[in-house]
């Protein structure tokens, strides 16, 4: 793996390799628990905890673990941390634990976590692994917050429980129902692709402008494009 800076290790997961939006991993929790912001926060914090803790441990013990039982060991480690997170949530915030339902235990099989162990923590030093896990976890958190935000605002007219639009707002209940999960993520991806398409078009125009050395004309064209 190419040497990167710590900042890059951390930043990777936030956007460029965002686990949900770019890598399409961990879709189940992303869709299932994001009908309110509070649930999104709890879920992503639990995931973040499991991810960072597992990365730390996996990276620390990577030399001790024979290759053949690598995966089994990782799963064992992850399952342990997930159970801890599950029990802690149940003890501390029982209402949210109830709302998340089976999805906390299901963090065990979240593709992001095992994926990072395989792809990163098992090959890199502890510090970098933790940074990577933090980045990925925060990237996951941001996505869940975005999803939860959109769904709660439209679906309930509130954010974190606070009414935003007053009592006359007619909530779009679909947004907190299952179809709303699919549609919201689809819509986010569409917006992202549209934005990228525009950025690419703008870049092409700039390049063209530089090459033709006709700044004025190209600027006019760029304006027309955007």
């Amino acid at each position: 793996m190419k040497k990167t800076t710590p900042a890059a290790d951390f930043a990777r997961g936030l956007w460029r390799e965002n686990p949900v939006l770019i890598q399409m991993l961990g879709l189940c929790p992303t869709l299932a628990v994001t009908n309110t912001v509070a649930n999104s926060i709890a879920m992503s914090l639990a995931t973040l905890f499991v991810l960072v803790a597992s990365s730390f441990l996996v990276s620390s013990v990577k030399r001790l673990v024979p290759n053949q039982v690598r995966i089994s060991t990782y799963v064992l480690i992850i399952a342990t941390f997930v159970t801890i997170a599950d029990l802690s949530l149940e003890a501390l915030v029982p209402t949210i634990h109830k709302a998340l339902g089976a999805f906390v235990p299901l963090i065990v099989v979240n593709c992001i976590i095992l994926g990072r162990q395989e792809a990163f923590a098992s090959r890199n030093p502890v510090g970098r692994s933790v940074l990577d896990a933090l980045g990925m976890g925060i990237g996951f958190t941001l996505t869940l917050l975005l999803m939860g935000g959109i769904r709660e605002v439209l679906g309930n007219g509130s954010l974190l429980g606070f009414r935003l639009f007053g009592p006359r707002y007619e909530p779009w209940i679909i947004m907190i129902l299952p179809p709303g999960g699919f549609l919201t993520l689809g819509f986010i991806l569409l917006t992202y692709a549209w934005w990228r398409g525009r950025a690419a078009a703008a870049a092409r125009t700039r390049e063209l402008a530089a090459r033709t050395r006709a700044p004025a004309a190209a600027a006019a064209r760029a304006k027309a494009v955007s």
Partner: protein
Amino acid sequence: MSELFWILLSAMVINNFTLTLFLGLCPFMGVSSRVATGLRMGAANIFVLVLTSISAWVLNTYVLADAPYLRLISFIVVIASLVQIVEMTIKKVSPTLFRELGIYLPLITTNCAILGLAIFQTSRGYGFLQGFAFALGAGLGLTLALVLMASIREQTELADVPAIARGTALVLIIAGSLSLAFMGFAGLLSAG
């Protein structure tokens, strides 16, 4: 009987694992571009789900009664090992079947539909038969969603889908529409 039927129907269409509970989305997104693949994946899923339901019931009844905190670990370990054993058996006994279904087994082992089934079954306190109906319904529902999605995706390959929607975004919108359509089954058999 009618309770078992309702459990099966509920897991299959009313609370479809994929379209309303969001379980097993990764195979749903990843393996739903061809109907033939989707069918095989679905069949493999039904098989593993039933196996899971049985093992979870055994574990819950005989092993885990006093150590609920080991539930997750033991589910994972037992399911993974069972699937592995089955996989090896199939490979030995019927190489054809292995080619058709076997290659999907390791992919399924650790997906959340499987673990989710075990967890739901536990938290709802299903007995053996109830668990079996639940697993069968979940598997059939998963297959239904997978195959519908695959056939629609094959169709959209021939469409002039705008560039920004190609790929996952379109699949999600289709899934949302399917999920919307499946809402028609809500309340089935419970209105009487």
